[in-house]
């Protein structure tokens, strides 16, 4: 195993993985993290901690991930290239690992013009591919990016994101291949609403054999209203939301229920797509719905890590599956 990550064990064991996402508070309150963590306990294999998402200042992902680790959850620390140069990032990775963080998701990061400090300077010293590469070098080659020796390496599972709905479409799989070559172990995708396009992308992924070199977790967002969908369609760059989905939400008597239903259906359909290794659930500050969706999608209970810790993956299905 590359790491001490629960997620790695679940994936390596051949289970259909489920991860969730947790946004840290815009405050110094650890209590908020603890409360949200409750929803995910026993319901997902690992929890993503966003890194100042949409460039709005929140509690740091390192600190939040450390709190989660203390609660027995497996945190995936998100790390963007927007706010730190290569010196800060390497230093933060060492610190996070020391605090018990075993997964990192390497991201470019939303542009600061979207957030609450639009006049700030961005960094983008590295891009996400270069970040992945750097973490892999630190972990596997025990070296800093500079080439200097690294004595105690951070044994983190390396994740990356990909957006099959952004343009240029044909380039997306090239970029995925680059991330895999750079060292990504797993991929979490942008939320899937447009299944046909996702399937076309997966076909290209399979054509290149990438699904055999990296675990692909498809993103799913349970939505509360038609307006939320419309907002994503019109305002969020790189989202593809079919109109019939919006109409379906509009027509629903209980939109929240309909949103859950759509999420569950989507998960079931994604499970049928060859090469999809799991689901990444993004409840967008509606963390309470995560157990509901997981339950109704038939993804519970989650495989339990053997008491011995990180045992080699067994061939058969894990207990309870």
């Amino acid at each position, binding site marked *: 195993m590359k790491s001490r990550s629960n997620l790695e064990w679940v994936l390596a064991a051949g289970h259909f993985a489920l991860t969730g996402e947790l946004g840290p508070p815009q405050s110094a309150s650890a209590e908020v993290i603890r409360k949200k963590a409750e929803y995910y306990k026993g319901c997902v294999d690992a929890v993503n901690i966003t890194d100042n998402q949409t460039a709005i200042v929140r509690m740091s992902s390192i600190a939040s991930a450390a709190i989660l680790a203390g609660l027995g959850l497996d945190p995936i620390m998100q790390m963007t*290239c*927007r706010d730190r140069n*290569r010196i800060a990032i390497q230093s933060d990775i060492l610190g996070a690992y020391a605090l018990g963080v075993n997964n990192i998701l390497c991201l*470019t*990061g*939303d*542009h600061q*013009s*979207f957030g609450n400090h639009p006049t700030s300077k*961005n960094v*983008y*010293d*590295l*891009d*996400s*591919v*270069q970040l992945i*590469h*750097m973490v892999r070098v630190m972990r596997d080659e025990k070296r800093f*990016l500079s080439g200097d020796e690294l004595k105690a390496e951070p044994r983190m599972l390396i994740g990356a*994101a*990909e*957006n099959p*709905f*952004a*343009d*240029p479409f*044909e*380039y997306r799989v*090239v*970029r995925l*291949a*680059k991330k895999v*070559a*750079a060292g990504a172990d797993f991929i979490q995708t*942008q939320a899937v609403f447009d299944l046909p396009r996702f399937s076309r992308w997966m076909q290209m992924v399979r054509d290149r054999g990438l699904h055999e070199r990296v675990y692909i977790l498809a993103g799913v967002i349970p939505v509360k209203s038609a307006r939320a969908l419309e907002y994503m369609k019109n305002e969020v*760059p*790189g*989202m593809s939301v079919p109109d019939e989905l919006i109409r379906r939400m509009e027509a629903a008597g209980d939109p929240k229920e309909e949103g859950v239903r759509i999420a569950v259906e989507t998960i079931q359909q994604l499970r049928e797509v060859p090469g999809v290794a799991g689901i990444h659930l993004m409840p967008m500050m509606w963390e309470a719905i995560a157990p509901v969706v997981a339950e109704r999608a038939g993804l519970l209970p989650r495989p339990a890590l053997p008491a011995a810790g990180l045992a080699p993956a067994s061939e058969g299905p894990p207990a309870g599956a």
Partner: protein
Amino acid sequence: MIVAERKSLDEILAMLQGCSRVLVVGCGTCVTVCMAGGEKEVGVLASLLRLAAQREGRTVEIGETTIERQCEWEFVDGLAPGIRGYDAVLSMGCGAGVQTIAQRFGGVRVLPALNTKFIGIPEKQGMWVEMCLGCGDCVLDRTGGICPVARCSKGLLNGPCGGSQGGKCEVSKDIDCAWQLIYDRLASLGRLDLLEAEFAPKDWSKNRDGGPRKVLREEVML
């Protein structure tokens, strides 16, 4: 060319507070071409300064002159006769021009009338766009002649971020996604293979992160 834009009149008037004799100096090179600080703009600004003073019932003396290039000692020298009679020199040159005049004439207040914006081109009459950052380490050979460092909002080297949609950047629909342009261009050149290679982290020491830069060519020195 270096593209600049005139500061707002309020800002200029504020920095000229207390000055009644001002020499407005235009530059005949880049900023003439980008319509920010040539002879015409000097005329317009001088007129406005006089009108603003008239409006307040003040008398001012606004001199107007435009020199070939504000960034060359020889041309700046031409300002010598008379410059000391003014309370301030309002340079309509780029930042290099303002500093050259200031350096040449110690003791004279030299003020910037422009904001120097970028190295760019007039994409069409009346619209200038940024093209080059002057990063000191050109990558255009690998990106189809389109610069991701200057033209991608994040300066990404390994392809577009997830915010690229319909050829536009996530930051604004008015910004083309540089990586879409690169992709299209390389596709038309039949060189999509260039996209597969990983760009190593950039050597920013060649940019101004290495400190103020200098180009030295000993063979042409006197």
